[in-house]
């Protein structure tokens, strides 16, 4: 594999870009692996990469039912931030953000991480106070956070709807400057390439159809490309976790599958330099502009449980209304595409990185809306769990038994209703 450098870009420019190598092997499945990760999204590939890089482990495979990055990795709004407050979540997302900050160098692959700032609009004195309290938590725990008053916000983003007649006039904003966006495909490809260079087999079109058990252990996985024996197995298939869990005969989970839509407009000249979030009076909306110029945005879940990767139109109307209410200048912009991903919505809105009732099975699931930003951190802590067979302190409460202990990592305080943890 060629290492990317200024020199390699220059040299390949001279030869018409014809001499680039394949970036990763099209691996054929072996009969047996020491570690098998099910799910070739950002999380699964990152896990395999950190297992090899941080823990020096070999003989690892990632199984992907379709093509890598074809699931939720390609069905999100690419926002990266760490403004979570609950103990455990706080440290987890901050660690993930730190990994993002060095990811392009670490992977030798440009993931186009752009720290353009995450601006949450605030519309009442109470909201400003609550945000100040929360964002002080960020500052006191090694992160960055600011409250922008209206004059500063107007300087930074002059074309928001500052009208006094707006249904929810803007008073201030809570800002994390180190937050931003990244290029979703590049993250998948970067991790795949880096994992492959450490010898990880990335096996596509390989759907798990059965889990073979013997005395509380997984012995092998039956797949569309034959039976694969496994020493340790990691499930990293958010959206479809319950289906694999059922195949392993493990019963119920504190998870429901819901779908979340995202939208992109036709490409525009640069108009929005930040990630802007609007959430008041029952709305929920977040928007940024991609490098291609499309405005990428999303809102709430479709509200009813679903495994279908297609969204409904009432939500399209809701988010369009939100877009117009904060950026009226977008009134004539046309929608180009919308897509929908299936999310593991957990009972408290937080994730699971934990051991399971089976000795050699590990679970990474329950990512709600947060899976994209969490990718590097999830891979890092999940690899740590699999390699050491014990959870890291940071994810010690992110297990399936936390509800039994009375622990709810509920950022919104919404209660045990999965659809409310947006």
């Amino acid at each position, binding site marked *: 594999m060629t290492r990317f450098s200024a020199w390699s870009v220059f040299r390949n420019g001279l030869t018409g870009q014809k001499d680039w190598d394949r970036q990763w092997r099209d691996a054929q499945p072996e009969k047996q692996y020491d570690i098998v990760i099910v799910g070739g999204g950002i999380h699964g590939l990152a896990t395999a990469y950190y297992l090899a890089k941080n823990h020096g482990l070999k003989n690892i495979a990632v199984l992907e039912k379709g093509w890598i990055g074809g699931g939720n990795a390609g069905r999100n709004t690419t926002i990266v931030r760490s403004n979570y407050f609950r103990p455990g979540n706080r440290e987890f997302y901050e660690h993930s953000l730190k990994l993002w900050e060095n990811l392009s160098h670490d992977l030798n692959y440009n993931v186009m991480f752009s720290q353009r700032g995450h601006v949450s609009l605030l519309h009442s004195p109470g909201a400003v106070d609550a945000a100040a309290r929360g964002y002080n938590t960020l500052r006191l725990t090694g992160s960055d956070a600011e409250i922008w008053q209206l004059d500063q916000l107007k300087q930074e983003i002059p074309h928001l709807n500052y009208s006094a007649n707006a249904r929810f006039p803007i008073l201030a904003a809570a800002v994390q400057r180190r937050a931003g966006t990244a290029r979703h495909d590049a993250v998948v490809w970067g991790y795949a390439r880096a994992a492959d260079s450490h010898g990880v087999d990335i096996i596509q079109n390989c759907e798990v159809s059965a889990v073979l058990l013997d005395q509380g252990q997984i012995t092998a996985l039956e797949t569309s490309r034959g039976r694969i024996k496994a020493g340790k197995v990691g499930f990293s298939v958010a959206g479809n976790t319950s289906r694999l869990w059922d195949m392993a005969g493990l019963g119920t989970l504190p998870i429901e*599958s819901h779908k979340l839509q995202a939208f992109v407009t036709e490409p525009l000249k640069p108009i929005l330099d930040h990630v802007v979030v609007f959430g008041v009076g029952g709305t929920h909306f977040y928007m940024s502009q991609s490098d291609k110029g499309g405005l990428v945005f999303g809102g709430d879940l479709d509200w009813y449980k679903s495994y*279908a990767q297609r969204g409904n139109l*009432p939500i399209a109307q809701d988010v369009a209304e939100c877009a117009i209410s904060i950026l009226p200048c977008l009134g004539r912009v046309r929608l180009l595409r919308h897509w929908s991903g299936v999310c593991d919505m957990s009972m408290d809105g937080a994730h699971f990185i934990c051991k399971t009732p089976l000795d050699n099975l590990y679970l990474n699931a329950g990512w709600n809306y947060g899976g994209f930003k969490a990718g590097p951190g999830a891979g890092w802590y999940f690899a740590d769990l699999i390699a050491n067979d014990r959870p890291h302190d940071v994810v010690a409460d992110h297990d399936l038994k936390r509800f039994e202990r009375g622990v709810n990592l509920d950022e919104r305080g919404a209660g*045990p209703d999965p659809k409310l943890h947006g």
Partner: protein
Amino acid sequence: MIRIPCPYCGERDHSEFTYGGDGSITYPALDAPMADWLEAVFERENVRGLQLETWHHVMGCRMWLLVERDTMTHEIHSVRAAHTGLAAVLEEKS
């Protein structure tokens, strides 16, 4: 848009309704062991396929409904009033 045939109002857009949740759950007695409550409040089968769920016709007759719906195709298979007394009256009428 899913169209839900409300037994009182007739077929309506799903945007007239709010989604309740898993309708297969029954809460245990108040003095039941903690494990039963944990199961009812936190654990879900998360069916991919035909599932029983509750919907509230909040912009219509305000009746709570028990709906059998496919979570993969969104097809509605059956709808009846969640309140057994109301269900009996409505089914007798039809």
